[in-house]
């Protein structure tokens, strides 16, 4: 094995790739070659580091120098200074990694400090396209141990004892699901992986598949052994080309090494798997719709029971888990159920990956122990709200979740607490909102998504979400009535109680939670025809503050519809609110803050 004095880890996750990290990688390889460092420095394309805000990211070991927001031309400096001369390029480092003039290693940076990486342990660490790197990090050891030393019952017992619950949203105990599938009668059984990640802003499953695809193969093989299956399907959305590509590479490598196929580890156990591509319907993340889609049918949910554990793919017993759930399993086998259940809260064990977005400094992926408070996630890991704005609410669980207001920011995050607050864990989307967000507008945003994504099968979801959105549109336009507010509540309740699948049953959550916590904002829209956050355009009026106006005329020059009148240097300017299109250009242009909206 060759030894190198420097390892250059280049992020190959979707976020960094879209900002040219592959060109950065190429440039590194090129310059290392030119500088004759080929035997001393090695470039490794890894999965996502999580701090997407700072991308493209490059980390140089052994120093752990964390270079962020690089441009291709910065590579030249890093090679000539850092690699050739051994001088870390401080200007290009992630600024929080410099404390009192000293560079900190990546693991001491605020964003990573409170994290505990189990599902993401190899993301940003190994090259996902090289099976040897996975094996070097204990890869396939769990599978080997399971196949040679354990009975299927023992495997299921460990998963049960660990307290692992489904990470896809429902939070169903994973071990129990495995047990049901193992006990279901059938000559043929399947295991399947739900990689149809659809929540807006959530990308932890993509990150695992891009950064550590072998963990899914290993885990599915373990699951297949436990439940008595010999065939696996991974259902991934086609919009994740890098994930699909890397998983396929991983499957091929595993087959070549005999880790997939006949008689794995020279045992009687045989297992093979294949990828099925989804066409991007949100509802296909719902397990029965996913099964229909795998079978080649329209992605529409089926009634349950029968549950997939009894009648799943092609009506055969099927174990269906989400990517992040699977990603935890090999570690549970290797480190034991007790280790896993020592992390987290009483009923939510282990860690959870969240995709932090919205009004937050550190946009990205974070993996924290269950029971971490929202405040820690948002302020300590997330780095707080930009521009000194006030925190208003956090939306968890994507379109199925709800908005949790500032009053509950010290709540420890776990499945049950979030449900209690009218939200849910979901797949782990976490969208932070500040004082400039209008909650009616937020509810509209999420509902707009569910209206588009409803499969159209059942009446409450298909027609009900549409009517809820129309009522919210009315409220945002200032034509909402008190009856609309009441009607919203009753309709939401029917949709929740009577819809066929999880999509419909949870679709009203963003509306119900904002109605519950932010009724005053709804009432301001309805009674006073006012949007307190200044977002709903129809309710906004732009005005010149006469005392502040310096008669410079810049606002009038910027106005695209010529609705600002006045004479330069002589009269105070005036905005014709009838003509105004509320584009905000004047407010941004005024050097004297003499324009207000409200």
């Amino acid at each position, binding site marked *: 094995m060759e030894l190198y004095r420097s390892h250059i880890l280049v992020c190959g996750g979707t976020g960094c790739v879209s900002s040219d990290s592959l060109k950065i990688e190429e440039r590194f390889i090129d310059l290392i070659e030119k500088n004759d460092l080929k035997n001393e420095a090695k470039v490794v394309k890894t999965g996502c580091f999580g701090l997407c805000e700072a991308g493209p990211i490059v980390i140089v070991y052994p120093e752990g120098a964390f270079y962020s927001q690089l441009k291709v031309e910065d590579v030249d400096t890093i090679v000539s200074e850092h690699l050739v001369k051994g001088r870390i390029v401080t200007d290009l480092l992630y600024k929080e990694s410099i404390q009192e003039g000293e560079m900190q290693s990546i693991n001491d940076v605020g964003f990573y400090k409170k994290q505990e990486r189990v599902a993401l342990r190899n993301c940003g660490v190994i090259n996902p396209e090289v099976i040897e790197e996975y094996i070097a990090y204990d890869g396939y050891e769990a599978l080997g141990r399971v196949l040679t030393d354990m009975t299927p019952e023992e495997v299921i017992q460990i998963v049960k004892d660990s307290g692992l619950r489904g990470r896809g949203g429902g939070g169903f105990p994973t071990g129990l699901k495995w047990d049901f599938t193992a006990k279901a009668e059938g000559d043929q059984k399947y295991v399947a992986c739900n990689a149809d990640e659809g929540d807006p802003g959530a990308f932890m499953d993509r990150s695992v598949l891009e950064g550590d695809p072998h963990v899914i193969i290993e885990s599915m093989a373990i699951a297949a052994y436990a439940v008595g299956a010999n065939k696996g399907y991974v259902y991934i959305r086609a919009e994740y080309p890098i994930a699909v590509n890397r998983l396929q590479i991983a499957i091929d490598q595993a087959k070549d090494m005999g880790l997939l196929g006949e008689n794995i580890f020279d045992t009687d156990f045989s297992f093979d798997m294949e990828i099925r591509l989804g066409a991007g319907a949100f509802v296909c993340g719902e397990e029965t719709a996913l099964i229909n889609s795998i079978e080649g049918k329209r992605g529409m949910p089926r009634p349950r029971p029968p549950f997939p554990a009894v009648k799943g793919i092609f009506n055969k017993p099927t174990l269906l888990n989400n990517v992040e759930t699977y990603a935890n399993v090999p570690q549970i086998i290797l480190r034991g159920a007790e280790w896993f259940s020592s992390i987290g809260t009483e009923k939510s064990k282990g860690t959870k990956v969240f995709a932090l977005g919205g009004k937050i400094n550190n946009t990205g992926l974070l993996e924290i122990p269950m029971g971490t408070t929202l405040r820690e996630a948002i302020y300590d890991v997330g780095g707080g709200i930009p521009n000194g704005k006030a925190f208003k609410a956090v939306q968890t669980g994507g379109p199925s979740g709800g908005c949790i207001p500032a009053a509950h920011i010290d709540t420890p995050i776990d499945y049950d607490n979030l449900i209690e607050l009218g939200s849910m864990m979901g797949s782990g989307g976490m969208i932070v909102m500040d004082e400039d967000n209008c909650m009616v507008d937020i509810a509209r945003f999420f509902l707009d998504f569910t209206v588009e994504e409803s499969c159209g099968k059942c009446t409450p979801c*298909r027609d009900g979400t549409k009517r809820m959105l129309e009522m919210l549109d009315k409220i945002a336009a200032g034509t909402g009535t008190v009856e609309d507010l009441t009607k919203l509540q009753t309709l939401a309740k029917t949709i929740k109680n009577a819809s066929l699948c999880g999509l419909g049953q949870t679709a009203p959550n963003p509306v119900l939670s904002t109605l519950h916590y932010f009724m005053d904002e709804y009432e301001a829209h309805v009674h006073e025809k006012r949007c307190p956050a200044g977002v709903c355009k129809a309710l906004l009026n732009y005005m010149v503050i006469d005392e502040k106006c310096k008669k410079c005329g810049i606002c009038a020059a910027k106005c695209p519809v010529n609705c600002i009148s006045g004479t330069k240097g002589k009269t105070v300017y005036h905005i014709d609110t009838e003509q105004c299109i509320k584009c905000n250009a004047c407010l941004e242009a005024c050097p004297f803050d003499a324009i207000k909206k409200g």
Partner: protein
Amino acid sequence: MVTLSINGQRVEVEQDTTVLEAAATIGIKIPTFCHDPRLKPHGSCRICVVEVNGGKNLPTACVTPVYEGMEVETEGEEVVTARKEILDLLLADHPLECLTCEKAGECTLQDLCYQYGIERTSYDGERNHYEIDYSNDFYYSDQNKCIKCGKCVMVCDQLQETHAIGFAERGFETHIATPMERGLSESTCVSCGNCVSVCPVDALAPKKKTKFRYWETEKVRTTCSYCGVGCQMDLLVKDNKVVEVQPAEGVNDRMLCVKGKFAFDFLSHPNRLKMPLIRKDGRLQEASWEEAYDTIIGKINSIKEENGPGAFAGLTSARCSTEDNYMMQKFMRAAIGTNSVDHCARL
């Protein structure tokens, strides 16, 4: 066996029975749109929601299996609220043309709106607008009236197995369509009309030749005369004229083919033969049955005398029953004395 209670009434049913079926055994009717016992469980319309053990979520009776100790309320407050809301939502995208609608009187949506007191929708939102597809010779598809219960698609897929129609688009734009939206005449539709027979509203309906209201008709159960299968059907008769045919329970499992379902106009056609005709003076003229049989018997006897029984051959029809066909060959063999007897049903 499983014991449960429905609206306080104890009922004992087999394992794997649904709540809907269990309720039916004690005469409790739960409304449905999308349910049909011949089809795989679907659970799409949600009108059959019921309350189980006071739980918040309302499962649908049509797909929920019973279990020991289950307590079901079929008309509780939450249930009625949900049903009213569902009807309200359906009406919000359904033209209120009941005065002139062909389905009036036999429309499930109309019946349930009446039952739950929904006069009109409380929503004033967007509606879908579709061109009515008249391209099929026997029926039309008016998607503006469709409530997306999906029965038509399932009948076409699971029972008729023609797969001519399916769902298109998603969410509020979901509708029933032919492949590539090319219309029924360009689809693989065989015009069996089984989708029409199950449609609860006027979205799929026969092209009527006669104006009638369903309450003006009388149902006459009969056996289809087109072939020997013996499909059971109800003739809808107004003023002694058949105006529509509906499939009935029987060997055909409430299915019909294009002929049984739609081809009944011959019954009242002016050219239909109602009396025997005998050629006299070079012209076919109406005659009495006695006269006709006398003529037949006379000719059979004289031909047999002159040329022997080998001069005869008998051909029977697939439109006759098995018994009729049996009688025919018996007659040829025993009465005439020939084995030359055949049947039209061959390819």
